[in-house]
């Protein structure tokens, strides 16, 4: 049985930042199942990381390396190629690797930083055969950028999530022909900047309100049938079109990877598919914290790093002294808001609290308001808000101390 103060599960940007922060005050062990640290970043060889924290556009590996170097200099115990199999509410962890075998680790506090996984073809029920040549976008990215193999040369991409958009460009740069990106929704699901930089700049067509209704090919993909969908998302048969291709890439969404969290019945948020957390990034189980994509899928790694540091700091603090929960303010997703993280504020004696959320519908000339009961305590104006773009607002100490009700509500309204 090994003992540590804080055990971090997952060595992506969230786990790295959380471990570093926690290590300022506590003994930390970091467990990562891959060979390399960095999570998804080593395969993200495009730039666009760190604009906020480093004020420059780094590539994924560069961004990760910054933290990996710091980890190497710290006294954090790092175990790679180590998969966590089980956790329990007493913060016992069971992990496995080829050197230590089955490890039992007793921690005072755990930080969950397992990231997310991709939705598959089955989850959206694409009919057809099951040939070779169907990959999720993240897997294709890894195959090309890390393993050095090419999944196909005539590509159709289903779904316009960011990874899919990035891969449309990546395939094009590799000499493949991307026939088009097909998105069932009437709007792209990735960031506008990615639609512009990855599709428009390369002349790759984006077909909105379209989906793939059949996959053809016995051994390898030979083509797909794409169909327009009506307002209720039902395919319109007359619009079917067959597109010959040898590869179908799916970018149809990411889901927080919460197998471990579910083992101990942490309260989950149906909307984020991640754990419900408070302002300290603590889950419903005291002493178990969560950060990064395991909580909700972030757009930008900078925000992952920032919130992970909050988790790291509070996990170390928890080891020293278990804080008393003084109150419970529910943060409510009001008009036109999909979800808000954190969902709960337990202690408002803080310098500030940042709330992250997504809107449900695109709105121009929007006004974001925060209500304490009926009283408006915060307002921020935005020229435009869109579902793919996460919004954050920061409530100041002054605002926080003035709160009177145990419910804080965010609305997004139209100014006109």
């Amino acid at each position, binding site marked *: 049985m090994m003992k540590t103060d804080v055990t971090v599960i997952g060595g992506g940007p969230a786990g790295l930042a959380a471990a570093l922060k926690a290590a300022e005050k506590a003994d930390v062990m970091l467990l990562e199942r891959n060979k390399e640290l960095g999570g998804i970043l080593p395969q993200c060889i495009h730039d666009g990381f760190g604009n906020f924290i480093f004020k420059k556009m780094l590539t994924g590996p560069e961004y990760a390396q910054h933290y990996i170097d710091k980890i190497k200099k710290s006294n954090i115990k790092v175990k790679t190629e180590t998969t966590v199999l089980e956790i329990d509410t007493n913060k016992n962890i*069971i992990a496995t690797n*080829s050197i230590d*075998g*089955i490890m039992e680790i007793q921690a005072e506090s755990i930080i969950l930083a397992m990231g997310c996984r991709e939705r*598959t073809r089955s989850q959206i029920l694409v*009919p057809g055969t099951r040939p070779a040549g169907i990959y999720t976008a993240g897997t294709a990215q890894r195959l090309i950028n890390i393993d050095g*193999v090419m999944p196909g040369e005539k590509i159709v991409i289903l779904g316009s999530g960011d990874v899919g958009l990035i891969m449309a460009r990546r395939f094009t740069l590799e*000499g493949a022909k991307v026939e088009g990106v097909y998105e069932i929704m009437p709007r792209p699901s990735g960031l506008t900047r990615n639609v512009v930089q990855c599709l428009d700049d390369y002349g790759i067509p984006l077909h909105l309100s379209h989906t793939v209704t*059949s996959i053809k090919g*016995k051994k390898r993909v030979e083509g797909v049938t794409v169909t327009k969908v009506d307002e209720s998302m039902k395919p319109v048969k007359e619009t079917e079109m067959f597109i010959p291709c040898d590869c179908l890439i799916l970018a149809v969404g990411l889901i927080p990877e919460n197998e471990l969290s579910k083992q101990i019945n942490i309260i989950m948020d149906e909307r984020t598919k991640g754990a419900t957390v408070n302002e300290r990034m603590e889950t419903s189980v005291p002493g178990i914290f969560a950060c990064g994509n395991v909580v909700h899928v972030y757009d930008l790694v900078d925000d992952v790093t920032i919130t992970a540091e909050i988790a790291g700091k509070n996990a170390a603090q928890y080891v020293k002294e278990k804080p008393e929960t003084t109150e419970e303010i529910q943060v409510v997703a009001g008009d036109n808001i999909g979800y808000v993280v954190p969902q709960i504020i337990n202690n408002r004696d803080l310098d500030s609290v940042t709330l992250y959320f997504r809107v449900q519908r695109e709105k121009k000339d929007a006004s974001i308001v925060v209500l304490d009961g009926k009283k408006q305590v915060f307002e921020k104006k935005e020229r435009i808000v869109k579902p793919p773009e996460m919004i954050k607002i920061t409530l100041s100490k002054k605002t926080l101390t003035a709160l009177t009700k145990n419910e804080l509500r965010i609305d997004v309204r139209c100014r006109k």
Partner: protein
Amino acid sequence: MNDKGIRKNIEKIILKKKFENVAVKVENKVVYLTGKVNSYDAFLDLGLRIGKKKNVEGVVNNLEYPNKERKEKKKGSASKIGKADVVIVGGGVIGSSIARELSKYKLRVILVEKASDVACGTTKANNAMVHTGIGENMGTLKQKLCVKGQQMFEKISDELNVPYKQNGMWIITTKDSLAKMKLPSFISDFIAKRIIPMIVLRRGKKLGITMNLTKRRELLKREPNITKKVLAGIYSPTYGITCPYLFTIALAENAMENGVEVMLNTEVVDIVTKESKVESVVTTKGIIDANFVINAAGLYTDEIAGMAGAREYTIHPKKGATLIFDKKANEYINHSMSMLRFPRTKHYKGGGAMTTIDGNIQWGPTISETPDKEDTTVTTEDIEKMFESYSPLLEDFPEKLVITYFSGLRACTFTEDFIIKSSKKIKGFVHAAGIQSPGLTAAPAIAEMTISLLKNEGLKLEAKNNFDPYNKKKIVTRDLSNEEKKKLIEKNPQYGEIVCRCEQVTKGEVVDAIHSKIPALSIDAIKRRTRAGMGRCQGGFCLPNIVKILAQETDIPIEKILKNEGGSDLFIGRAKCLLEDKYDEN
């Protein structure tokens, strides 16, 4: 009735149904149809009508219909590659069962399989239920062999060290069971609640199957998520589940241990006969001399029989699609359940919400005809049909948790029963054909029956005294306790390294599969043996890992790795390969 009488009857049908360009011939109670019809539906219609007639033992339906696919005859290799007492064509559950059964005797046996692995045909895509036989028509060969096969299943599974569970099954009736009949509800409810269960129980008694009638209230207690519309339930405790590919692989490996030669990637293209006797089997790899051939080629049995001049039936494939749900949904039911519906429609053959050997819930199978023996698509209609048929079985089932779906093809004959017999035309040629459901269950009994047919054909059977029925247990780390895992990893660290996160498969297990008796040399072959890639991420995480291990452990370059068969290359080449081509052109 003699052939002449049969022919008269059939000519009547043809006349009545206005088939104009069809000619009939009857020989040894087998009906041969030639001529033309105007659709595949008409081809089926006539075939099935004739197949249902009493005394008809087989229908060879050579009718032409528009867009009928023509197959080119494949060339064999002329070199002699072997000599055997018996050649088995096909390495599905049937061929493999027969191989193992034959390995008990002092014989030289060769099994030839065109795919790169055994269990690649219908045997890999079915519902894995070890049926009791209650669902089959009384008096059929299917039913007889199903009942018998089921009784043999546990012992064989034990010997081979493969999983088998008698997990039980509910046969239920609901308020919807007779909905199609449009009766007043008090009548249909009465029939569904009282009459149907009584008939089922009586049938069970005749077949010697244990079944217990359960009151609605009790049923709802034992299966709280079952539809509130349920009226009655019969519990059948001996209903079993297996893993069809592990079972088949184990059969084939055990047969090999006992001396059978298994030739993979070897397609039978012709069968040479002399004076109506089998002489040799021509394959893509060469010629094997043999006096006895067992035709266990599944969907292709009619074509194999044709090669020998022993065509005595035609196969018309019936597709069945299945949905598999995430293990998160496992606890929704405690036992498999199937809802009875009357009248039986073309598209509903029963099936239900069933558990797999790994505990996942599956819905299926559907049923639909297809002219294409390779048509394993799952169409939008198939998916809709599954939701329509099986969703009413359970309340609030988390239907979104589908992790995969597939379809398989039943090798049906027009007489809709197994055809297990020696050819009347060619001596030494034995059919194990028309093995539709419940062929998996019946496999052990089919194997026994085939052996006795061979004996009648004149094959001398002398038992070996060193036959070893046992297979060693394969290591499955997820089934071990932490203590057992620790010990194992100390001996071989590869069992500590997880390569498939969803199913927790270790590198050691993948390496074992690659180097097993029948080596797993494709991603799907490894998946079938280890479950890597079968979980909810469907290989998104483990595929790159498995590809790498496969390349390391064999001499296959990484970019040449296959999903399953030749041509199913996962990659088109190394990264940058397309750019290099472009530079070359310039």
